[in-house]
C-alpha cells in the first residue's frame, strides 16, 4: 500500500510567482487511477459524513479505479453542483480527508485531487448537454450567484423548477469570480459551471441589486413562490487603527476585486491597482493568502503576511499556506498592526506623495490563555513596537453582513452581527424566504455555502411540493 498521496504536479514556485496561471496542474489519468487504488472502500465511509454536501466518495473513487470517469462524474454531481470548483478550493484536510481511514496510519486518500480530476476529465471529454428535467411549473428566485446561490439554483433546476438568479455585479459567480484569483480557480472553470446551469434552464440576471433594484417582496409579486438569499459576504472589516484611510490601504475585497473581476492583473486594464513595492497583508485566512499571492504576482518585491497568532492558528487552507511559503511570501506571525504610517511633507501640503503608505507599525504578541473557542489568546508584548516598511497594506480580517436586504425586507430577522437568522433547513423568519452562505454565517468557506444552498434547495422543494 502506497503510504503517501500521489503528489500534485504544480508549476515551480519561482515560475508561478510571476504569472497568474493555475498553480496546481491536476493529476494525469494514470496518477488518478493509482491514487484511487489507495481507497480502502471501507464499510463505514467516514469521509461521506465529513463532506458538507455528502458526496458518495468511495463510490465515485470506485468508478475511477475502473477508469469509468464519466460514471464517477455522475456520482459526484448527484450531490454537488460545482465539482471542478470544489476539487480546487475545498479545505479537504479538515473535511473528508480528515476522516479518511487511510489517514489513521498513512496519508489520507487525495479525495479533493480526485474530484478535480473527474470534473476536469468530464469538462474536457464530454460535450453532451445535461438532461433537461420536466418543468414542474413552480418559480423560484435566487439572490446572488456565488457558491450557495449556484448550488441552490442547480439543485432546484434539476428538480424541474423554473429558477432565476439575480446578481448585483456584471458577471455571475460571486466570490468565485471577484475573490478567488485565477491562479487558484481559473475563471473559465467558473464560466463552465455557470454555463451548465444555463443549460439546465437557469436564467441569470446580472446588474440587479436585490434590496435596491428590486426587493424581496417584489420578487413574490412577480410570481416567485420562494426566494433563496445567498447574497454573500458584506462590508469589509477594518482594524480601526490610525492610518487606515491612507492611499495604498485596501480591503482584501477591493484589492482582489480590482485584480480579478476588473482584470487589473492583465497588462492593459481599465481599472487600476497598486503594483510592486512592499506589501503587507493583515490576516491569516484564505483571503489573506489570495491577496498576498496576488500582490506577489502583480510584481511586489516583498510580501508579508501579518497575523497576530502563530502558524498553528492560521485559519487558511494548508495547501495555500504551503504554496505561499514556497513562493516566498514572508510570514510575520505573532504581530499585530497598531498603526499605518504615511508620507507627510510638512513643507509642501500639495506634495503628491502625501498620504502614501510608508510603513506598518506592529506590536509583538505572545500566546496567552485559551479563549472560549480554545484558541490561545494573543497578548501584546509591551514596548515591542516596530515598523515594517511597506507601500501597500491589504486588510483581510473578514467581513460583516451586507445591510441592503435586511433594510428593505420587513420581518426578516437578523442576529446582532447582522447575519440572517435561519433554522436548520435554511428557512428565515419569513415564509418562503430561505438563506444560506456568508449572508447567514459571516465569512466562511465555499463548500459550507454550497452545503447551505443544497439544504435550502431541499427545503424549498419540500415547501413548494406540499403547497
Amino acid at each position, binding site marked *: 500500500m502506497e503510504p503517501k498521496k500521489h503528489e500534485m504536479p504544480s508549476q515551480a514556485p519561482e515560475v508561478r510567482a510571476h504569472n497568474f496561471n493555475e498553480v496546481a496542474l491536476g493529476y494525469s489519468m494514470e496518477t488518478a487511477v493509482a491514487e484511487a487504488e489507495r481507497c480502502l472502500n471501507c464499510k463505514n465511509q467516514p469521509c461521506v459524513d465529513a463532506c458538507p454536501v455528502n458526496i458518495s466518495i468511495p463510490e465515485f473513487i470506485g468508478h475511477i479505479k475502473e477508469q469509468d470517469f464519466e460514471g464517477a462524474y455522475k456520482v459526484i454531481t448527484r450531490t454537488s453542483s460545482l465539482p471542478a470548483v470544489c476539487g480546487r478550493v475545498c479545505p479537504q484536510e479538515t473535511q473528508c480527508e480528515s476522516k479518511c481511514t487511510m489517514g489513521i496510519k498513512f496519508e489520507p486518500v487525495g479525495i479533493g485531487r480526485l474530484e478535480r480530476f473527474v470534473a476536469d476529465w468530464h469538462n474536457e471529454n464530454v460535450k453532451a448537454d445535461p438532461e433537461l428535467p420536466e418543468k414542474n411549473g413552480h418559480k423560484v428566485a435566487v439572490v446572488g450567484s456565488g457558491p450557495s446561490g449556484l448550488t441552490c439554483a442547480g439543485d432546484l433546476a434539476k428538480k424541474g423548477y423554473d429558477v432565476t438568479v439575480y446578481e*448585483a*455585479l*456584471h458577471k455571475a459567480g460571486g466570490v468565485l469570480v*471577484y475573490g478567488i484569483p485565477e491562479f487558484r480557480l481559473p475563471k473559465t472553470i467558473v464560466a463552465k459551471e455557470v454555463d451548465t446551469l444555463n443549460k439546465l434552464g437557469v436564467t441569470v440576471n*446580472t*446588474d*440587479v*441589486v436585490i434590496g*435596491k*433594484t*428590486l426587493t424581496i417582496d417584489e420578487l413574490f409579486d412577480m410570481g416567485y413562490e420562494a426566494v433563496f438569499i445567498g447574497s*454573500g*459576504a*458584506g*462590508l*469589509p472589516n*477594518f482594524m*480601526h487603527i490610525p492610518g*487606515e*484611510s*491612507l*492611499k*495604498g490601504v*485596501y*480591503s482584501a*475585497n*477591493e484589492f482582489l*476585486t*480590482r485584480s480579478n*473581476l*476588473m*482584470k487589473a492583473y492583465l497588462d492593459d486594464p*481599465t*481599472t*487600476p491597482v497598486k503594483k510592486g513595492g512592499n506589501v503587507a497583508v493583515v490576516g491569516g485566512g484564505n483571503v489573506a493568502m489570495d491577496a498576498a499571492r496576488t500582490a506577489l504576482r502583480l510584481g511586489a518585491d516583498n510580501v508579508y503576511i501579518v497575523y497576530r497568532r502563530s502558524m498553528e492558528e492560521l485559519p487558511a487552507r494548508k495547501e495555500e499556506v504551503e504554496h505561499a511559503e514556497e513562493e516566498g511570501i514572508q510570514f510575520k506571525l505573532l504581530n499585530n498592526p497598531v498603526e499605518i504610517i504615511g508620507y507627510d511633507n510638512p513643507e509642501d501640503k500639495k506634495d*503628491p506623495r*502625501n*498620504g502614501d503608505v510608508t510603513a506598518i507599525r506592529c506590536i509583538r504578541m505572545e500566546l496567552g490563555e485559551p479563549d472560549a473557542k480554545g484558541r490561545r489568546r494573543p497578548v501584546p508584548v509591551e514596548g515591542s513596537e516596530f515598523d515594517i516598511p511597506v507601500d501597500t497594506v491589504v486588510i483581510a480580517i473578514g467581513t460583516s453582513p*451586507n*445591510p*441592503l436586504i435586511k433594510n428593505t425586507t420587513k420581518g426578516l430577522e437578523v442576529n446582532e452581527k447582522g447575519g440572517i437568522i435561519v433554522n436548520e433547513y435554511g428557512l428565515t423568519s419569513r415564509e418562503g424566504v430561505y438563506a444560506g452562505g456568508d449572508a447567514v454565517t459571516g465569512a466562511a468557506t465555499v463548500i459550507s455555502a454550497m452545503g447551505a444552498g443544497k439544504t435550502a434547495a431541499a427545503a424549498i422543494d419540500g415547501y413548494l411540493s406540499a403547497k
Partner: protein
Amino acid sequence: MFKIVHRRSLRPTVTQIEVEAPLVANKAKPGQFIILRVDEDGERIPLTVAGVNKEEGTVKVIFQVVGATTTKLNHVPEGGYIQDFVGPLGNATETEGIKKVCIVGGGVGCAIALPVAEEFHRIGADVTSIIGFRNKDLVILEDEFRAASNRLIVMTDDGSYGREGNCTVPLRELLEKEKFDNIICIGPLVMMKFTVLTAKEFNAPITVSMSPIMIDGTGMCGGCRLTLHEDGKDIIKFACVDGPDFDGYKVDFDNAIMRSRMYTDFERHAYEETCNLFKNA
C-alpha cells in the same frame, strides 16, 4: 445591454444621456446613483441620477469627459448600447420636514444638484439655488434650475457670467439674514469643504453629497470609505451604502481629497492612450 435613447451635449465636455433601464427608473430617487460599464472589460463608474422618466423607463445621467472611460462613453451614439447599468444605489436625499432649502451646486455637480432641487420644488419647499462655474462657457442647466427654484443665483469664478466669485459669497450673505432647514451642497471636494466652513460660521445645517472612487457600489469592496468625525472619534463609513449624502460637519474632507488622488497618474496615462485611440480611428 442598455440602450442610450437620447443624447444631448450640454457643453463640449459635458454630456447628458438617457438610458433605457426600466427597473432602475422604477426605483430611482434624487440623490441616488447608478454604476455603468461602457463595454465588456470596461471600468465600473458611478454616476448620479440626473432625472427619471418612469413612463418611458429611462434614467438620465450627466457626465463630464475627464478620463478614458468617459471619453469612450461620449463616443457611444444615440441608439447605441452600453454594457451595464445598475442601480439605483445609495440612499435618496432626505427631504422630510424640510420647508426651506438652499441648494449649492458646483460645476458638473449641478447635474446632481438639479434633481434634488426639482424634488424639493415638487414637494412644495422654498428652494434657493446657488450654482457656480469656472466661467461662462461651463454654465449648464441654468433654465432647468430657474424652473425649479424660487430664487436662483448664478456665479462664475471670473465674472464672465452672473456674479463674480464662488458660491460661498452669496451663501454667506443669505445666512447673515435668513435661516434654512438644510443646505445641500454638491460639487468638487474643495468647494464642498469651503461651503461647509461657511455654513459652520452660522451654525447652519449642511448636507454634502460624496462621490469617491468605488467599484461594486453595494458595500462589498470598501474602496469608497470616508473618514467621519463623530463624537470626538474617527469612524469609517461607506459612501455607497451609508451615503452618498453625509452631514457636512462630520466629513474629513482633507482625507477624502487625498484618497481621490490615489490613481491620478494611472488615469492620466489611460486617458492619453484612449485619446490617441480615437485620434487614430
